[in-house]
């Protein structure tokens, strides 16, 4: 029997959480050891995911490292986990962001640090579970269980309106997901009517053909759950509240990982399980995504609060992800998955920086800042790089994802791509404008003059983020290669059932061209041309 590495990745944080709770000392005295323990555990998990990546066979579309144990045999429910190229990268991203989130809230969380660390670790475990589950029941358990630690993180350690935000977050997401539960039950029942036994096994459910009228209902139920989580316009209203009130670590994980669960759910469950409905609803999803891109950007532009601005920028960026998925072609879907990772890195970074600023000044209003560059050159430099990565400057990660998405969207529907492209311009506008107001110009407020620059702990959070942003911008193939077979398999499955609408071709051509463009100076002209579209 092989070593159950996925189970270890899921279980290790739980063990860590119990360990943290069992540490001697009260909730306050035990603080120093508890956060060190939590950090050590989360780094260990990250190391495990790197091992996972190194052993991963990038050429295969199959689920790897699978483990299968009966759980509730009477209903065909099993503990069934495995990763393919899509989930592998999200698992790594989760493990990458968790230690950074812990570091980001290292000093700003003053009360009940033990509980804080335990909830972060429990959250990590649930998120890992969501990404590795190949049994729909198991997936739902992790999906719903994840709400509880996040609820407590926002509700206990958040800012002034934290209770409102926490309850809203929980009820919104739960309201979306319960209907998905019914659809999952319906699927399992359908499996029993066609084969005689219940099953929640994703691979077995892929194999059955869901009747048309049921596909539409099931797809809607699944997509509602995922659309709320993404959040897709008009289901996004919980997000700004949750982000603004959450502590820094909560925001980082919320933006970095939780939102990706919605888009991950679309590409893993909703699209391949119900291909006809997916093709039918794809234009509607794309339209909502484009509305979200533009709406999110416009609303972000007028926000006086840094955190709210970043929150609305997430609505806009996640709109790109959904647009790429709805394009239903290889470029679009690959770009979407890539953009999920990008958004985790760059928005995670932005929330960390906003956290640093708000730790120093105890405010997040843009108007309170100005001229920070003089006092804190290093912090502002990191801020600039993360901002540019979020905008999608070529050479940094955001560009690759957005480029692929727009390419895919253009092939599916040029009009949509045209509208979505305005979102790229708008994002440059609101991000750079915000950056200018915060960092440049004269120091208008005395309090901003003598702020400390990056502390060692903050260096430790910024270096990995910036390094990864550059790495993902320069060698995208490192990340695109493993996901490619998996993405193609999803599309092939849709094409198999709905032949007319889906084009699977060699995405590697475009990818290679893009990689060359990003890597080789001689090809910069192409990129500049592409940039000209903006």
């Amino acid at each position, binding site marked *: 029997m092989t070593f159950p590495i996925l189970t270890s990745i899921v279980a290790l944080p739980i063990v860590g959480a119990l360990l943290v709770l069992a540490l001697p000392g009260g*909730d306050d005295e035990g603080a120093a050891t508890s956060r060190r323990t939590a950090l050590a555990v989360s780094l260990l998990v990250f190391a495990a995911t790197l091992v996972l990546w190194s052993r991963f066979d990038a050429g295969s579309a199959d689920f790897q490292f699978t483990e299968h144990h*009966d*759980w*509730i*045999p*009477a*209903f065909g429910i099993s503990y069934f986990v495995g990763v393919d190229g899509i989930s592998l990268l999200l698992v790594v991203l989760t493990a990458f962001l968790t230690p950074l989130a812990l570091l980001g809230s290292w000093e700003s969380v003053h009360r009940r640090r033990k509980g804080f660390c335990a909830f972060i670790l429990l959250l990590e475990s649930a998120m890992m579970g969501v990404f590795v589950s190949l049994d729909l*029941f198991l997936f*739902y*358990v*992790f999906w*719903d*269980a994840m*709400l*509880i630690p996040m*609820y*407590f993180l926002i*509700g*206990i350690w958040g800012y002034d309106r*934290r*209770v409102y935000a*926490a*309850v809203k977050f*929980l*009820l919104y997401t*739960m*309201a979306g997901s*319960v*209907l998905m*539960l*019914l659809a999952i*039950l*319906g699927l*399992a*029942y359908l499996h029993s009517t066609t084969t005689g036994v219940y099953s929640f096994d994703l691979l077995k459910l892929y194999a059955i053909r869901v009747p048309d009228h049921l596909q539409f209902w099931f797809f809607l139920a699944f997509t509602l759950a995922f659309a709320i989580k993404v959040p897709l316009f008009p289901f996004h209203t919980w997000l700004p509240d949750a982000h603004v009130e959450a502590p820094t670590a909560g925001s980082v994980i919320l933006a970095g990982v939780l939102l990706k669960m919605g888009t991950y759910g679309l590409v893993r469950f909703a699209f391949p399980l119900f291909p006809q409905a997916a093709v039918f609803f794809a234009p509607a999803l794309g339209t909502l995504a484009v509305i979200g891109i533009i709406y999110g950007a416009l609303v972000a532009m007028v926000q006086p609060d840094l955190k709210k601005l970043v929150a609305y920028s997430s609505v806009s960026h996640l709109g790109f992800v959904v647009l790429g998925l709805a394009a239903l072609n290889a470029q679009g879907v690959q770009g979407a998955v890539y953009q999920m990772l990008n958004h985790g890195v760059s928005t995670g970074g932005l929330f960390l920086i906003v956290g640093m600023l708000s730790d120093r000044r105890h405010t997040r209003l843009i108007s309170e800042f100005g001229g920070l560059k003089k006092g804190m050159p290093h912090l502002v430099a990191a801020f600039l790089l993360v901002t540019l990565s979020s905008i999608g400057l070529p050479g940094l990660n955001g560009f690759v994802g957005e480029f692929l998405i727009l390419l895919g969207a253009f092939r599916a529907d040029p009009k949509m791509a045209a509208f979505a492209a305005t979102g790229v311009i708008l994002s440059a506008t609101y991000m750079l404008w915000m950056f200018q107001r915060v960092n440049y110009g004269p120091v208008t407020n005395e309090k901003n003059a003598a702020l400390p620059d990056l502390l060692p702990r903050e260096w430790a959070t910024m270096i990995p983020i910036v390094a990864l942003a550059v790495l993902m911008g320069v060698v995208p193939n490192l990340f695109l290669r493993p996901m490619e077979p998996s993405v193609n398999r999803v599309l092939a499955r849709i094409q198999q059932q709905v032949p007319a609408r889906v084009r699977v071709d060699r995405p590697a051509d475009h990818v290679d061209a893009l990689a060359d463009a990003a890597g080789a100076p001689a090809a910069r002209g192409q990129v500049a041309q592409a940039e000209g579209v903006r």
Partner: protein
Amino acid sequence: MNVAAFSAIVPMACVAAAGLVAMTAEAFRAPGERMPIGGLGFIGLAGAALTMLGLWNHNLTSFGVVAADNFGLFVTGVLIVVGALSIAFSGPTIEREGLPAGEYYALMLFAIAGMMLMATATDLLVIFLALEVLSLAVYTLTGIRRGSPRAVEGAFKYFLLGAFSSAFFLYGIAFTYGVTGSTRLDRIGSLVAAQGMAPTPMQLAAVGLLLVGFAFKVSAVPFHMWTPDAYEGAPPAVTGFMSTGVKAAAFAAFARVFLSALYPLRDAWSPVVWVIAAATMIAGTVIGVSQSSVKRMLAYSSIAHGGYLLLALLAGNDVGKGAILFYLLAYAVTNLGAFGVIALLDNADRPNDQVRDYAGLSAGHPALAAAMAIFLLSLGGFPPLAGFIAKWYVFSAAVKAGYTWLAIIGVLTSVVSVFFYLRVVVMMYMTPTETPARFPPVPRLAGAALIVSAILVFYLGILPARVLDWAAASIATIF
């Protein structure tokens, strides 16, 4: 008549005997003397548990009217858990308020015996007898705090409406007898089936009256009016006992009567139960949102949970029947745990049963707050807790039987219910308070019972396969 003929009633006899001894002991107790009368209850329940395990799978019948089939025995098991936890949580209240321990425990044990009889009876008259045994004991327990006007009001309302519903039930039995000439469930079933397709008015009257009687006992809307007052007036441990034990016994008999004897008339009663189930889920949840007392909130929550059980009963398929059993167990463990916390917080000078009294509990009593949060989240149906598996089981049954709309109502009301469960969590964890309510220390026995319930809540939520198999095996023997 040989000895074996009595075997099916041995579990309830053990409990009833313990009740009798408790009553006798009370008579010999000098005022102020402390006696471990609660321990007697545990002995009786342990005897019941042993005999229950011995009877499992033997499918014995006593006198032709009490059947120790696996269905009845499963519910008996649930009732043993309910009884043990209730007794453990009663100690602090009895001590503090100086309640007569012997009477209190004797009444509780008699009620448990009545419940066990109700769960295993296969004759309408015996069901009625059991119903009266348990009801009379529970009416008295509700009003056992004689000094409290609320307790008296609750007990009186409960008694009047309960007596009223008993009359309905009795009328139902009379009509059933008039139609079929029997009160035995198996004979009723075959005779009704033989009487042809279209139900006669007499049959409808019989079904309707029985339905009203049961609906009162399981506090289904619109027959739920007594519930909040009775739950609020009774001591917390008794409320927990009522909301789980009475419900378990009543649902067991409800399922037995409607899914076996009256199953041939299913087309006639299922639309009515549909409406009652929907109304119960919706009203229980919506009214629960506006409660400021935790006990009243849990009273409405228990009404809503009754609605989910009705949904399982309505589905009526093998999954639904199993779901009733599993739900009763999961709900009993969870809800009793929650009432256990309420009982422990109950102070001599202050009941601490308002939602706002929970402010800052996580700072003063972290373990109690964590336990309460676990129970409330389980009631709300969050994985990986017992309440999630129970709801999932009910909704699978509903989806399988084609009651999709009712299932949608069910999941949506369960989201709304999360809102009011969370209010308590918000108070405990997220509301700082300058003047924390004073909470008494936790006695050892009650603390242990809380830990046991919390472990069971996790066990049923994470490793439910074995208990689900038992539940499935239990329904295989009857119906």
